Structures are given as C-alpha cells and as structure tokens.
C-alpha cells in the first residue's frame, strides 16, 4: 500500500539544495511529490502538523563497529538518530576481507531501515601485511577500504596498499597511528594519565602516523579519508597539506568533541575509546575544525557487552555506544552555541555523503532520504531504552533534546 504524507508548515533544512525555509512538503513512497505547492492528488495524503519541526537530510555515519549479527539492533539505533546510511568498518573479529563476508553483511541488512555501507579490510585479516583482494571487495559492494583501528606497521606496505587501491579508485579510510609510539597506551598521555598511573598515548602516536599518510597520499594520488583525528596538531597538519593542494577528507569522533581525558578520572572505563579523549584544547580545536567544515563527524560507534567494560581500565573493552543519541548529543553543541546547525549537518550529512559518494538530492519527483525531527523534544535514555546492543553509552540518564519522529529512506516511511 502506498505511503503518502503531507508535512504542514515544516522547516525544510536541506543544505545540499540550499534550502532553509518553512513550507509544506508532500512525499509519496519516498518520492518528493510536492514542495510548497501541493500535488494533484493532495487529498490522498495524510496531513501531519509539523510546525516547529525540522526536515533534515539523512545523516551518514562514516565509522561504526557493527557485526553482522547486530545489524538489526544497531540499524534501529542509527535510525533513531536520523542516520540513513551507516559505514560498517571491519575489525579483527569480523575483518570483511572476503566477498562472502560482504554478502553476509548485505543479507543481514535486507529490510533494514538504514543502508549499511560495507567498508572492506585494506589488508588480509587486517594483519597490515598482505593486501586484501581489493578489486573483488569493490565488486562485492564495498564502498571503501579501511585498516580500522589497527596499524600498518610498515610504511612500505601502506604505500603499496594506497597505490593498489588507487588502481580501482577505491577510497581508503585510515586512522593515523604509529604503533611504536602508541605502545601499550590506553589513554591520552597527560596529567590525568600521570595521576592515574595509566600508560599514555602521546599525540605524536597520531601526528607521526598522519604525516606518513599525508605524504603517501600526495605521492600515490590515492583517494584517502583520514578517520578520527583526536588532537589539535593533527588539524594543523591537515590544513598544511590542504594548503599545498592535497584533496583529502577527514573526520573526528563525536566523543572527541564532547569529552576530554579528564572524564577518565576515577578509572571510568566508559571513556576508554580509540582514539583517546585528549585535552580541552584539543577538543576545542577539533570542534572549531568541524565548525569551519574542515572535518566530518562520525559516531565511531562501538557497542560492547555489559561485562566487557567491567574490568580494570587497561583491560576494559574499548569504545562507546553512540548511535542511540548521536543526534541529540550533536544538537547539544548547536543548542549551546558551540556549533551552527549548518555546520552540524554539513559534518554529519553533506561531507560524509560526498566521502562515501552517495547521492542524496532533495528535488521534486526524486527519491529523498530525510528525517523529521522535533529539535526541542526532551530525550533521556536509560539503559533499557537503548536500541543498540551496547550499554556502554555515556549519555545514559542525561537530559538531552532532539527526537527523530519519522525517517523516510529507500522508498519507505518509518514512524518512530
């Protein structure tokens, strides 16, 4: 049965179409049939009062750790935050280094309310040594390749991997890191790590790795995306490279613009993340780069079993479950005046959409991927309310604002 909806008096915020206006919108089965002007059969549409509500573009998450068996729960969590596309990064347990692994993911994603974009492994089993079958992974449907949160120890292998990926015009997502400087570190190297006696990860563990990537990207001409910068000096390095003419995209994790290493006080393993939370100066620099549209934002979502965080800090699982509240957390920065709504949507939708080469137009008689949001609706999630299978969510119990009421994607309308 056909789904038809008429949104009355909605604020249409569609940066790609350069639209920010309050008007009426008609959508039938995911196709925009009327904008300001009603379609012929407008009487058949279900009218929904949308005064005070926003119609925003579908958000695109560049990095999520979702196993094939968790696709259903995590897709619902993503939908709740307005995501219509989610990149699934490989990890050591599920390296996505074969066509069958890609197929399994795609099958798990059938009937899902969000589109899962498989990101394959850059090297076989993410070992950082043998190149993965990149051509076959692309044929199977991988939109990019990644080394995820593991290191390529040899700069030679990185050079060859980038050259080979360039052959197929594949985007390579790389988290900058130099393994020998990272060592056994489990949090930012600074006063908090010193106080707690935890092994620190110096900022050079990231910047040295970033310098390698930038120089090899320049040399090989590969299409490189830098995943999850965590420090101010990395932003500087990126700016320098861009000023030389290098076309390179980059993102930072939501956690790194929300929290600092001081959150680890009391050995709170919830805040053990990769890359680590750094100083407030780093947080500000990253946020400023997002505000300047220099960095995209990713949830860096990594759900964990409830017991996985219950261990001494250095033994606890790494990562945060962010999908359930990513939108209200990002909107908190907007509500606080730390980020404009335009920059926020650019970081969560426009940029990642370009990086993943997805089409997301907002044009008459074309399919749309959008979410209807009540920006002021109170959101306070307790652990049982989470759709994600990960309870490692720092926002549990936190009073936030911004609720997705409906998502329209891939021809389907979902009321939430």
């Amino acid at each position: 049965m056909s789904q038809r909806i008429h949104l009355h008096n909605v604020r249409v915020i569609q940066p790609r179409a350069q639209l920010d206006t309050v008007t009426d919108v008609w959508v039938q089965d995911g196709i925009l049939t009327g904008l300001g002007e009603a379609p012929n059969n407008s009487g058949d549409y279900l009218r929904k009062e949308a005064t005070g509500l926003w119609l925003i573009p579908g958000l695109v998450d560049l990095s999520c750790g979702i196993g094939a068996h968790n696709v259903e729960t995590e897709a619902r969590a993503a939908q709740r935050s307005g995501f219509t596309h989610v990149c699934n990064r490989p990890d050591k347990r599920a390296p996505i280094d074969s066509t069958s692994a890609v197929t399994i993911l795609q099958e798990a994603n059938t009937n899902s309310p969000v589109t899962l974009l498989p990101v394959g492994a850059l090297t076989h089993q993410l070992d950082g040594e043998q190149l993965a079958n990149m051509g076959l992974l692309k044929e199977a449907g991988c939109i990019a390749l990644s080394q995820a949160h593991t290191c390529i120890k040899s700069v030679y292998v990185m050079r060859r991997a980038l050259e080979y990926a360039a052959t197929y015009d594949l985007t390579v997502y790389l988290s900058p890191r130099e393994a020998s400087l990272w060592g056994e570190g489990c949090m930012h190297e600074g006063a908090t790590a010193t106080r707690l006696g935890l092994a620190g990860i110096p900022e050079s563990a990231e910047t040295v790795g970033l310098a390698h990537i930038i120089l090899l990207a320049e040399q090989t001409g590969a299409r490189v995306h830098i995943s999850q910068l965590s420090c101010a000096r990395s932003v500087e390095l990126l700016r320098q490279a861009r000023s030389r003419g290098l076309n390179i995209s980059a993102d930072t994790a939501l956690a790194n613009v929300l929290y600092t290493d001081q959150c680890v006080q009391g050995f709170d393993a919830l805040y053990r993340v990769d890359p680590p939370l750094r100083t407030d100066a780093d947080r500000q620099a990253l946020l400023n780069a997002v505000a300047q549209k220099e960095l995209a934002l990713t949830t860096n979502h990594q759900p964990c079993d409830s017991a996985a965080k219950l261990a001494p800090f250095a033994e606890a699982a790494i990562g945060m479950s962010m999908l359930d509240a990513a939108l209200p957390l990002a909107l908190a920065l907007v509500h606080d005046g730390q980020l404009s709504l335009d920059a926020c949507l650019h970081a969560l939708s426009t940029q990642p959409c370009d990086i993943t080469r997805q089409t997301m137009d907002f044009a008459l008689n074309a399919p749309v991927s959008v979410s209807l949001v009540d920006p002021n609706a109170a959101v306070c999630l307790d652990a049982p309310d989470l759709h994600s299978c990960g309870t490692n969510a720092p926002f549990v119990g936190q009073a936030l604002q911004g609720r997705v009421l409906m998502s329209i994607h891939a021809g389907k309308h979902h009321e939430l």
Partner: protein
Amino acid sequence: MNTTPSQLQLTLDGQLKHFLTTEGLSKALLTQIMDTADSFISTQERAIKKVPLLRGKTVVNLFFENSTRTRSTFELAAKRLSADILNLDIARSATSKGETLRDTLWNLEAMYSDMFVVRHADSGAAHFIAQHVTPNVAIINAGDGRHAHPTQAMLDMLTIRKHAGGIKGKVVAIVGDILHSRVARSQIHALNTLEAADIRVVGPSTLMPADIEALGATPYCDMRAGINDCDVVIMLRLQKERMQDALLPSEGEFFRRYGLTESTLKAAKPNAIVMHPGPINRGVEIDSRVADGPQSVILNQVSYGIAIRMAVMAMAMSGQQSLRQTADSSTTGDIA
C-alpha cells in the same frame, strides 16, 4: 564519571572503609594512620605481639603479581591483629583458567571474607574491585600498576615523621624511575597533604611522567640541583627492563648521573635522611656506603611496614563495621 578513589574509600562520616590511595585523604586521617601505627609499634616490642582487633575476621591476600616481601608483611600484620589469613596466588590459579576477575572475587566473597589485600599489575584494579565487585569487603591496595602503593607511602611518611622531625615544611626529593613508580605517586599525594614545603622528583626525561607538576611536584633532571638542601632523599628501585625499553642507555650511566653516593649526598642537608622502598639495587641507584651509612633509615622503613599495615587494616575494618551497624540499625528500625 565514576566515583574518585578518594571518595570511594571513606564512609559518609569520613572513616576509612577501604584503603586505595593517599590522594584526597585529609591531613587528619593520614595523621590518624600514623598515630595508630605508632601505637602498634609499641605492641610489636612486647613478648606477645598479637592484639585481638581482627579476631574472627578473614583476610585474603590476593596477589595477582608476585611479591613475597609485601605479601609477608601484610600476612604478618593480619596475624598480629588475630585475623585468619588466606594467601591466594591468583597469577597461577583461577584467572589463568579463564575465570574473570569478577567471578574469582565473587567466589571469595561468598566464602565470607572480610578484607581483600590486593596487588595487581593494572592501575585502578583495587578501585575497580571496591566499586564494582565486592563493595562490602574492605579493600586494601597493596600496589596497582603505576597508580598507587598507599601503605608503602604511609610507612615512608611515618619514617620521615620519626626520623626527620616531622613532615611539615620539609624538602623531599624522590629520585629515579618516577614514570613507572606507584610509590612515588602515593608519596607525592601524602607529602602534599602533610604540608611538605617542596616535593621534587629527580630523573632523566625518559623516566618522568607527563605533566608531573599537576600532581604538585617539581621535576629536576640534575641530581645535585634536585637534592640540594633536601631534608629527605628517597631513592626508587630501577628495573632492569628499562634498558631494553630504550629509556636508559645503561645502569652505569644511570648510577653516574642519578646514583646516590656519599659525594652527591653532600648536596643535601647534613642531617638529611636517606630512604628506599626496597629491594635495593646496590651500585645502580644507591651506593652501599650510603645505603648502610649513618643517614640511611632504610631498615627502619621495613620495620614500620607491619605497623602501618596493621593500622590501615584495623581502621578499614572498623569503618566497614560501622557501615554494617548503620545498615543493621536502619533495617531494625524499618521492622519496628
């Protein structure tokens, strides 16, 4: 955010219920620990050394890292308090069979243990156990990673109080591998609270933690400048693996630059005391003539170790008992 270790170790009325770190404890409480230990020192000089404070209580020594010396002093301290003591070498038992730390501890708690003395290679392990695993068992931290070794720090404070004429206003230098030292961190917190005038940490940059100033200590790379006019010089043990980690070129160079000799000790005050948490590497961080010399109080430190451990065990158990009494009386009140 989690409860900080300092909040976690106190009852609502400010009594010790765990002993996890010296950080955040009041001057009054640190002084009470030293006073209580002082009172036990006199009992240790008697023919019958036992006191009945922990009679009927079960203390479990949980050593996830080997340490014969520290474990022995805790065992002796528990026995002198008349507790039953169980020594568990976890490194070689349950956890190596795949049982998680939490499962192991829940099993031990189910055996009606009253106190765990915990040593673990991970920073925050004792704090984790106190907060998430067995909140009704008193936890005494016997060393967690690089984070804290509070009983060692307190026996050092007692040593300074007894042999340097108090702690307030004193200049104290801690020399050597500060980066990996839980002892140094616990000493710095205690010295700050007990109002030492100047706390210096001395060593090469490779062995100095980032932003150590934030803990209230001043870093020095030069040994003579670092111990200049000090009242107390505390030497730390240097582990041999530091050479493999490219942190130091050789023991010889370390001794030459940072070893405490009769000559370098002259930079300190003439009556300065020399301390070392042990075991000593003679000829690596300290010369034998200094270690065995008139300014050394290293053996005194060892002898105060049992008294300090008796003091914190007795105080933490008393804190736990008062918690239970409060809980019992409120339950009785409900029924009434």
